[in-house]
């Protein structure tokens, strides 16, 4: 018995001495020679392939399946638009764009598998998604190492684009959203006492609540109750809401994922709390008034990066509504924009490869449904926040708040 183990260990260690030092660099190795090798050869003339593969990572199953569907629908619309045109026009040549769609199950490790598959197996040029911050951070490390540009539609956490210079986002960032809600509540609604109900197990939710709290207190408001619950599985918020009710706030901010919003709002009104309801971009889902109940949601405000009423969005909203039978949510709109940012970058790119498309994406300067889009040096779009109010079951434009 001992002899076997001893011999095996010595053999393994002999191999280790030979192989181990080279090992840590090996994951980057297959990607590294391919990436710089490609642009050197066609440096003078742009080589345009007949077909370009793009990846989409979306939560088709799992806790955020609604977002996944909204997102996949938006990409379906994009590819149908392209089909109608006969392909993407790159320097006069029609290029076929095919999308490879992968499920992330809203789990970071599955997202890592999916991104590996997209990059290694399908050899995609760029990736759209995933739709939440945690998965984008996890998968971003891989795309960054492989030099494949990745753009998340609704990964609003500030850390997302800090992963590296190949990671972009199409939406506004959490700190800014929190500031917009705080400014709107304090300046426009003249509310001085607010409460927060947030999910401390979630990156998005805790990030938003923090930025709202800081901005609101800096403006001079008071947070009378800052209540947390843990995880998407929580369905009963009565403990937190009782504390909030006793603190008697004028407004309550709900920075949670769409799945939890209906129950939270219904339970709030069910307890007889009459405070103004404030929301974030996850609320931007056309069926929300029907899910929550129109009377409950009446008069609620939420901030988002996209207003379906804006002139620039009319065309997109109509097309989307005709095709899928519902008004596009923020998630769909951002997926649509992310896809168009990538397609536009491919048209302008000096070389059709990761670094070329990345550089073109960083220089994006185009009109999209949410308005004019440009990236700042941290690859976050410079956009204003839009405040909407739900009246008669439809979200209507109230005001825009500019970034300072």
């Amino acid at each position: 018995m001992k002899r076997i183990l001893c011999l095996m260990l010595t053999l393994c260690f002999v191999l280790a001495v030979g192989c181990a030092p080279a090992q840590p660099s090996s994951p980057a190795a297959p990607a590294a020679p391919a990436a710089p090798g490609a642009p050197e050869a066609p440096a003078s003339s742009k080589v345009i392939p007949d077909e370009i593969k793009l990846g989409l990572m979306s939560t088709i199953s799992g806790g955020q399946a609604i977002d996944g569907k909204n997102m996949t629908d938006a990409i379906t619309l994009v590819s149908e638009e392209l089909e109608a045109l006969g392909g993407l026009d790159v320097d006069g040549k029609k290029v076929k764009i095919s999308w490879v769609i992968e499920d992330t199950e809203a789990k970071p490790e599955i997202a890592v598998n999916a991104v590996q598959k997209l990059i290694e197996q399908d050899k995609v040029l760029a990736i759209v998604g995933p739709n939440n911050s945690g998965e984008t951070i996890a998968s971003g490390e891989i795309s960054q190492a492989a030099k494949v540009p990745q753009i998340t539609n609704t990964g609003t956490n500030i850390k997302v684009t800090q992963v590296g210079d190949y990671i972009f986002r199409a939406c506004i960032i959490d700190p800014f959203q929190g500031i917009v809600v705080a400014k709107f509540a304090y300046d426009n609604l003249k509310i001085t006492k607010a409460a927060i109900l947030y999910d401390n197990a979630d990156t998005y939710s805790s990030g938003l609540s923090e930025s709202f709290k800081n901005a609101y207190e800096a403006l001079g408001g008071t947070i009378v109750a800052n209540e947390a619950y843990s995880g998407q599985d929580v369905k009963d918020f009565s403990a937190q809401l009782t504390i909030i009710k006793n603190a008697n706030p004028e407004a309550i901010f709900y920075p949670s994922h769409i799945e939890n919003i209906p129950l939270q709002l219904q339970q709030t009104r069910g307890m007889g709390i009459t405070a103004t309801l404030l929301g974030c971009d996850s609320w931007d889902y056309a069926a929300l008034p029907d899910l929550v109940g129109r009377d409950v949601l009446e008069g609620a405000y939420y901030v988002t990066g996209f207003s379906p009423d804006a002139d620039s969005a009319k065309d997109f909203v109509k097309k989307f509504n005709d095709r899928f039978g519902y008004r596009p949510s923020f998630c769909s709109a951002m997926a649509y924009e992310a896809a168009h940012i990538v397609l536009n970058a491919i048209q302008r790119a000096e070389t059709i490869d990761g670094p070329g498309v990345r550089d073109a994406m960083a220089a994006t300067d185009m009109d999209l449904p949410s308005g004019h889009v440009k990236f700042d040096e941290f690859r976050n779009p410079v956009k204003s926040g839009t405040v909407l109010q739900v009246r008669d079951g439809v979200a209507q434009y109230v005001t825009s708040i500019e970034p300072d």
Partner: protein
Amino acid sequence: MKWIRRNPEVVFIPLLYVALYIAQRTGFFNNYIMQIVMLACINICMTLSLNLVNGITGQSSIGHAGFMSVGAYTSALITTIMLDVSCMSPFMQLVIFLLATVFGGVCAAICGYLVGMPTLRLRGDYLAIVTLGFGEVIRSIIRIADVVGGARGLTGIPKLASLFWIFAFVILTIYACRNFIDSSYGRACMAIRDNEIAADTMGINISRYKIIAFVLSAFIAGVSGSMYAHMIRYLHPDVFSYAKSTDFLVYLYAGGVGSISGSVIGATILTVLPEMLRAIANWRLVIYGILLVLIILFRQEGIFGGKEFAFLKMKTGGIQNIGFFKFRRKLKKSPETSAQEEVIQ
């Protein structure tokens, strides 16, 4: 020469590694496939660790991901936050990684001891509830611990777990489990599993052996956690949720509870299967679920049905040795051993 012919695994296991290594180096297996191979290895270790508690000792731990998260976070804390490994020489990186991994395992083992000590003295299913609670407590603590990123998750963990270390760790775990099961400790644990009162009467200190098995299991889970952290390079408290613990339980029961080979096969097949099913997109998890139901309906004893690969040379535990380098039992067929075998069967 004769000795090698009798123990061909001494050659074949390193050969398997060399084959994997060459496949990786030549690009025959791309990073995506290697990622799945390594993930399968880590799942094998977790399943083996769970097998020690659920399969061999007959206790039920249903929060094993909790121990994994302890190992993952403590080791990542050392390599990522306390020491900045990126600017060190590869050799120092390796030393720190291995020390951090062992430290992660020890922390998990300490947690296992603290959790197991009071509950394993009792008879019944208390361990299930306590491990379940432990997993949730750890997850909630990590969420509010800002030093490891809290709910945002921990990013920027260096990629130190290479194929070699993960592979070596799997082989070590397999042999450690084999030796544990074949030792007097393992036999005592199996006696406890089969009949606690009889084992007690025979003079086995029940709670002591249960705790030994549980702490060893927690240690392996902690080390797997460290490997996981340094392979995926991103940790999030929700990764180690109850659903993750359930995954390992599924691997164990689908593979064949109580058998090392069953754990290995179960974890490998069920890790690779969902990735192979990616071709059918939306129906992926549906088919995966149906296959699990079919396995349990038509093979209650698991895919491997409690059998063991012959190269493990199990003296106890496995019902039957099959396949992979025929192993003729060199045991003297004494009346006791054959009687024992009948009992097991």
